[in-house]
């Protein structure tokens, strides 16, 4: 074995973000994607009224829930995709680059979501 093991400070927090993201993604994304990605475009349900959706979108509770969903889902992606690249494509030697791309992407996406959900809309 290599050098003596050292505890990492970042991994537990990244894992916690990953697993919270996994829970909210599993709870919310299938139904939302079924509605807006499949059922509404195919006309299985009538297209929701614009005024109604706007009112829902601008409700403070929706804003907070959607922001939480976006941020956690993005960190869920970043963590899992990092390991997919490490293991599936055997890119572990590019570790730092992969980590910067994945978590950097999640941070950037979170900032965009926060700007849109708390400010622009």
């Amino acid at each position, binding site marked *: 074995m290599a050098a003596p093991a*050292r505890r990492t400070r970042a991994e537990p927090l990244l894992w916690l973000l990953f697993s919270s993201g996994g829970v909210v993604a599993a709870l919310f994304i299938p139904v939302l994607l079924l509605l807006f990605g499949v059922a509404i475009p195919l006309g299985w349900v009538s297209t929701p009224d614009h005024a109604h959706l706007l009112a829902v979108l601008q409700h403070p509770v929706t804003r907070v829930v959607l922001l939480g969903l976006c941020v956690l889902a993005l960190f869920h992606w970043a963590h899992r995709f990092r390991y997919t690249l490490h293991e599936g494509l055997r890119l572990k030697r590019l570790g730092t680059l992969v980590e910067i791309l994945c978590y950097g992407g999640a941070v950037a996406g979170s900032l965009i979501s926060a700007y849109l959900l708390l400010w622009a809309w």
Partner: protein
Amino acid sequence: MRTIALRVARYRPEDETEPTMQEYEVPLREDWAVLDGLNHIKDHLDGTLSYRWSCRMGICGSCGMTVNGEPKLTCGTFLTDYAPGPVTVEPLRNFPVVRDLVVDISDFMGKLPTVSPWIVDSEDAAPAEGEHLQTPEELDEYQQYSMCINCMLCYSACPVYGLDQDFLGPAAIALAQRYNLDSRDHGAHQRVDVLSAADGVWSCTFVGECTTACPKGVDPAGAIQRYKLTAATESVKSLLMPWGRRSDLPRPSGADQDNNAWSREVR
């Protein structure tokens, strides 16, 4: 007499650069395991075949091999389940092959003691105070993990270990949890540096094959995820309350353990 073909991996480093397969016909008896087939080869057909075995009853953990692609204890894997054959017998995957079906286990043997897989006594509880009492509920907490026989089938099934041999691996982590969850143990602080390192629990991506492969029902995958949850909760607590006491993982009581990072951080 009915027979079945065993296709056995041979590797003789003095003659070959990579393994070759050799086929043997062995009797197909209802009560014969793959190991009995190998013993038949060794005794009657080809004395040069090398493999490890000892107890023939799923306790010693030395006869682990890859049978038709799956990591198995060959003493508990019956030939009739593979009839009409052939049955392919290869060494455990993810380990260097030394000869025929024998693998080099020194990596695992080196990792095992790093997690202190024994009961670490609290310093103030002298043995003179008598025996350690434990309730059935406290026994239930860790008993499953204590069934490990160090057969290394879980390492053979684990792609993370196959890709990166620095990974501490399923059995070592499950054994660490076996002692962490034991009410008599006070060693969690000694194990945390190794367990919570990047090559410890955080390397695991919960493929879950270690648990599928385990012949003793230990569930190493569950042990690893449970430890992740404990370690993550602890680090959030220490972020929110850097001055606070941590209660889940027992603390060392002696003042002479200051060189231990865990105890330093706890104080």
